[in-house]
Every structure is written in C-alpha cells, then in structure tokens.
C-alpha cells in the first residue's frame, strides 16, 4: 500500500531529485510538495488526509525548518507524524536542536546525485516496512 510523503523544500531541483528517485524506483507512493514552512502548514491544515511522513529541509527562507518543526510538534493533530530532516550540513547545533524537538531521522544531502538517490531509496524502503499511525 502506497504512503503519502510531504516534502518541504525551497529548492526546485531538490524537489525534482526527490521525485526522480520515486519515479525511477517505480514506487507507488504519493508525493506532496511545499516550498516552505508556511505553505506546508497551509497544506496540512487544508488537506483532509495527513501525510504518513514528512521530509523537511532546514535552511529555507521565511519560516525555516526548525520553526516549522516546533509548530508541528506543538499541534496535537500533527505531532505524531514522523519528520526526517534533509539538511545540507551536519552542523552540531542543528542536529542537537532537531533531535531535541523531535525527529525520526536526519539525512545530510550528499553532493553526488547517485549517493543521494541511494540514501533516499534506503530511507523509503525503511519507512515502507514500518508501522505508522493511520487516521
């Protein structure tokens, strides 16, 4: 059964990369996209069905990833949705703060597309075999 992912990412090519990995691997998962935190919140509030998993970029204009994460975790309806960070750096402070607020994973985006594709593939396959709260 297909999962629904929400990818929150300001960079268009990053979004293309993620979609391409799904498409190339012929996964039947649904991908929702948001350019930034505000758009993601709007989408979450309007959408009847919640995503099973959120992929979140940290460095975004306006509301950044950590700010979005805090709002999400303080919302009783949304807080159980696992969030995996897709970040540029393994900056210690970012890592610490993310885990403090509550995340399900932290992926550093590698330079090479092949490496990226591999990581995302592993990630999706991992979550594919996980039990998630359905509403």
């Amino acid at each position, binding site marked *: 059964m297909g999962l629904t992912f929400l990818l929150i990412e300001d960079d268009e090519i990053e979004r293309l990369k993620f979609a391409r990995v799904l498409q190339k691997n012929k996964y039947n998962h649904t991908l929702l996209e948001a350019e930034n935190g505000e758009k993601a919140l709007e989408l979450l509030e309007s959408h009847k069905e919640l995503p099973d998993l959120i992929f979140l970029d940290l460095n975004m204009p306006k509301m950044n990833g950590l700010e979005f994460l805090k709002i999400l975790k303080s919302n009783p309806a949304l807080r159980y949705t696992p969030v995996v960070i897709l970040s540029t*750096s393994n900056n210690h402070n970012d890592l610490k703060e993310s885990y403090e607020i509550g995340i399900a994973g932290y992926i550093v985006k*590698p330079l090479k597309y092949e490496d990226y594709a591999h990581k995302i593939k592993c990630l999706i396959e991992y979550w594919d075999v996980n039990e998630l709260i359905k509403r």
Partner: protein
Amino acid sequence: MSNELEILQRALQREKAARKQAEQILEGKSRELYELTQELKNVNTKLQEGLTEKSSELQGVFENLVDAYVLMDISGNVIKMNDAANELFGYDIDKEHLNVLSLIYEEDYQYAMSSFQKLVTKGSFSNYQARVNTKHKGVRTVHINASLIYGKKNQPIAAQGIVRDITEELEQKRIFEEQKKQLSAIVENSSLGIALTQFGKILQTNKAFQNLLGYTNEELLQKEVKDISVKEEFKESAENMQKMNDGEIDTFSVNKKYVKKNGTIFWAKTNVAAVRNTDGSIKYQVALIEDITEQLEFEKQRDKLVKNLEKSNKELNDYAHIVSHDLKSPLRSMNALLTWLKEDYEEVLDENAHHSLNMLIKKVDKMDLLIDGILRYSSIDKINQPQQKVILNTVVTDIIDVIHIPSHISIEILTELPSIEGDTFRLQQLFQNLINNAIKYNDKEKGVITISCEQKNEFWEFSITDNGPGISKKYHDKIFQIFQTLDDKNESTGVGLSIVKKIVDVYEGKIWLDSIEGEGTTFYFTLKNNSFL
C-alpha cells in the same frame, strides 16, 4: 677735819661706785664680746658648712656635666677638664700640658680669635660654633659658651667654657635636609599629582598636581577638596573619608572626576592614604592622582574593538556555514542535472560530450572539496574542546591503523611520543594531515615514512620524514598558505597544510621543513610542553 674726811669718804664712795659701774660696764661689754665671738663662730661654721656644701655641689655639677667643661688660664692653658672634656678632646691634662690654641681648627682660627677677643672685652661669649682638632676623634664641630673668672681685685684670672660636640647633630641635620631635598625632588618631579590635605583643606601640592588642575600652588592652598571635585561624586569620596576618619581603612582608591580651573573635567585615579597621629587620629591625608582620561578613552576603544572583533569572528564563523550551505546547494543541483543529462541522453551524446560532462562533474567535486576545506580551516579555533591529556603514541598508532596505507609504504614510529595537554581532535588532525601527505605524494617503489620526537627545552620537537619527491625551497613558505598546492593532478585542495600550520600556532609552536628534491622531505614542528607551565 671731819668735813674733809667726810668729803674724802664721799669721794672714795663715788669713786668706788664709779669703778663698780665701770666694772659692770666692762663685764657687760665683755659678755657682749663673748656672745659676738660665739655668734661669729657660729656664722663662720655655718659659712664653712655652706661653702663645703656649695663646693661639693659644684664638684658634683662639674663632674656630672654631660657637656665638656674646660677651665683655663688667661693664656689658654687648660687647668681643669671634666670627664666629658677628656673624652671629647682625648687629652689627660694630669699627664700632658694642653693649650686650647692647639685645638683650634686652622680654617676657623680667625673666628676663634675674634670670639676670644669678645670674651676678654665683654667677659663672655655664647653660641660659638667651630671645628676643633681632637686627639682621637679627628675634626669635630663644637658649640661653646664661655665666661671669664675674676680675682679679688676684679681682674680676670681664668676662663671657663662649656663645650658640646654637635658633629653628629649637624650630620643628622644635614642628612635630614638632604633627604628632605631628595624627597621634595621626587615629589616635585613626580608625574603623579600629589596633594597633602587636612580635613578637606589643601595644605600642599606638587607641580604635577598644579599642572593637572591648572591652578598655582597658592590658589590651591585657598581651596578645599570639594572645590575641585564634581558635586555628585564628592559624596562617595566623603564616605571613604569618613571611614578613614573612623579608622576603618587606611587607604582607598577611586576613579573620580576633577574640575580644572578652566572648568573642564578630567578623570583621575585617586589613591588616598592617611597619615595618623600617635593616638590614631588623622593628621593629614596624602592624595595621589593620575590622569586616566586617555587611559579610559583607550579602554573604551579597546572594549569596542574587542566587541567588534567578537562580532566579526562570529560573523566569520556564521559566514563559513552560510557559504557551505549556499555554495553547496547549487553544486548539488549541478551534479544532479549533469548526472541526469548523462542518464537521460546516454544514447544521444557522443564520446566527446560524455567526456565534457565527466570533466564538469569532476570540477563540481573539486569545488565541493574546497568548500569543505574552508569549513574545516575556519572551525579549528572555533571548537573549544576541553583540554585533556592526549597520549600521542595512541593517537598516531590509531591514525596508522585507520587510514589507508598502500602496501608499498611503511610507517615507523622511531621514538616514544609524549603525552601532552590538548585537544585530541586537533592533534589527530595535525598528525593525520602530515602522514596523509607523506603517503599521498610518495613516488618511490618502497615508500618509507618515519615519525620521531625529542624534547627541546619547553617544547617537543616532532619530525615526520618521507622519501617522497621533495619540495623545492621556493615553496617552503607557500605550502602553508590556504589553497596553495603543488599538486599537478589537481586532486588536493591546498587546505591540509594550512590546517596543520594553524593547529601548531594554537599550541604556540613552529613548523618548518628540510627537503632535498627527489630524495624526500622532513617536516618539523614544535608543540609547547605544557608540563613546564
């Protein structure tokens, strides 16, 4: 006849009576004389006693006189001297003849003669002060009061003098004056303003104090401390003064403002010390003031600079991260797009296009490495790891175990490596970069790398020797600069040695190298041996 007889008898009777009377008178006179004699005798005895008493009194005074006493005849021949005089002049007149003229110090002769003249004409002189030659004590300065002694006919028969040795006293006085002069020279020439005050009144000031305030000494003597202080601040000083008066403190130091004659204000560090009477009450206060207006200005500027520096340091660190994010994102995108081009158009593109795309991807990789380098370089002095004992033997052995060493290369630690206080991560980075370079650039069939260390005073000197291609002398400085690489194959970023240099700097050490082109290189570096601290 009977008449005659009667007359005769009466006459005889009268005569008898007259004689009797005369006898009586004589007897009375005789008794008077006796009594008078007795009285005289008594008086004489009393006088005798008195004289003896006086003489012994005088003798006592004479002997016990602390000052020297000299009795001489009119020609200056000494007749008598007391013990003090003996002691002073060193002559025993019982054994040798002494004339006072021989005692006179040559240069004072004229003065001595005129004083003697005064003695002869006026009968005395006082406060004579001159030098004398003594037998054992050399030249001494003495103070003399002298007077003549007259005989029965009121003619001078002798002279007496009381002599006090004032040499020491004069010397003390001279030393005191000298010290006073020295002290006032110090006070006057001090760059610190110094003022003596009493109950808030200014009693004395030095040149620097006058210059600082722009008043003359005379003007300042009319002032009180509060007149040259700023009103709002005077309270604090007054509180300290009170504490000082109460004996709670002896000194205090404040930074306070002073008002100059022209009304301008300056900041001065002020030290006040109490000079107390024996009963502990305050006699004076000594205030030392030092203009610190400039100093405060400097401090203010320095604080500002430090703040700016902290800010730009932080900005720089943030900058490194921003750069890494902002520069890396497009690189990732470029890599993705290039990869897709290759994947999606594999059949369309010819070999040339593939080659170009691969080159492009390589350049993107290189760019990514450079950015990583900047990040690593900039974070060396940022991460403040706790200082701990680092066992370098273990660190280096671990590096050798972990990194990839091609089979044709051998690494050997020749001497025991020390343990030093430091940050494991940095020290590991230091050794790893140097060892990596030695491996990476080795061009020999059998690569040999050796590591050793020896103690040099307060430093450990390490050396890492390889038998690689060597480094031309002209690059010995350049290689430590960031992004400088001698690698033609374009695989290195030129960050490694700059990081090594930076870490050595952190440990207050030096790094240098010896190299023979074609034969090999030895990198030397020192690290402070902090067990010396």
